[in-house]
């Protein structure tokens, strides 16, 4: 995919996202998702979560550990982009190595997150902060796989240093939002 094609694609996704957020489509989609959330509570993870509090608590802990590893991978990569850590290690090496860890921890986070959501599906369905978290997570995944990764995959040393810093700051802000909104779910409802 060429640079311009990618830029146009990202721009299109952002425009569609804004149209979705600012029109009635958002509310209609939310209403259409209710049966899915009702069904989630009846699935085995939903039943296990509701029946065994200890199982839910252990999955919560696993979710936190996955978040810590993901946070570590993000902080190392973004810290290097900002020139704060590992400055004596080539940037491309840090980005490649941390990305692998990021993918594994993201998979673990999503797996444990879905399990937890099944246990309290109807509760989170009515929580605004849950949807903010999903939005932040979706933005984070989109940013990593469709913006950051393609941009930094080539000869990263030739990319404008200011742009690298901008990417690092944006990434940190997005993933901080994911963690903060996720924690706030526990305080709501």
């Amino acid at each position, binding site marked *: 995919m060429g640079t311009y094609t990618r830029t146009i694609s990202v721009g299109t996704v952002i425009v569609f996202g804004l149209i979705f957020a600012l029109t009635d489509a958002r509310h209609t989609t939310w209403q259409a998702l209710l049966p899915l959330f009702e069904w989630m509570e009846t699935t085995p993870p939903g039943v296990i979560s509701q029946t065994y*509090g200890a199982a839910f*608590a*252990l999955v*919560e*802990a696993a979710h*936190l*550990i996955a*978040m*810590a*590893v*993901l*946070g*570590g*991978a*993000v*902080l*190392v990569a973004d*810290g290097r982009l900002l020139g704060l*850590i*590992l400055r*004596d*290690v080539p940037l491309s*090496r*840090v980005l*490649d*190595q*941390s990305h*692998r*860890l990021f993918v594994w921890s993201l998979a673990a986070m999503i797996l444990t997150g879905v399990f937890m959501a099944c246990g309290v599906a109807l509760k989170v369905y009515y929580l605004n902060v849950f949807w903010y978290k999903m939005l932040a997570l979706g933005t984070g995944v989109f940013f990593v796989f469709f913006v950051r990764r393609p941009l930094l995959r080539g000869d990263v040393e030739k990319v404008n240093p200011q742009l690298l810093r901008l990417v690092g700051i944006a990434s940190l802000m997005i993933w*901080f939002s994911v*963690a*903060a909104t996720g*924690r*706030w779910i526990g*305080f709501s409802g």
Partner: protein
Amino acid sequence: MEVFNQLIYDFAVWVDAHQWSTALHESFYVYNWIESTHVVALTLSIGMLFLIDLRMLGLAMVDIPASTLARRLSLPMFLGFTVMIITGLLLFYAIPVRSAQSLWLRIKLVLLFAAAINAWLFHRRMSAAGHSWDTAMKAPMRLQVGASISITFWVLIVICGRLIAYDWFDCRAEPSSFIAALAGCVAGQEAF
């Protein structure tokens, strides 16, 4: 054990009597922001620690020299631990009696102490091993053992930390005498 538990209980009751403790507990936003900061600091401290440990085991960042990674990530890791300790103390200050009598917090503190000893031993072994293995896929076996123990301790610490929120073994739930002694329940105590 009873005397020890009574002393801790008396101290917690004394802390609880502080106006700031109650204010912190009753402030929805301040208390929750402190708790959120405690959890987010986890990504900085345990995130960095796991990266170092996984590197020693040859499971992550294998193309980066191990000692370079350990040295460079130590500062953000300690920064994260400092924030975690400060926010952890504030969380205790906000809810002192229940926290002091939490079985999970007590186990967590023991594990933290064990993890600190393991970290000290690990650091000593790493210094003694020199740089001969720096670019190897895995660290020497003794360091791998240390890294595995470290990961195990921290996984258990996170689990215990998470379980503090659950009231299964709270004193008011009247647990068995063995659990009550471990949790620090004191005869005739007031409900908090």
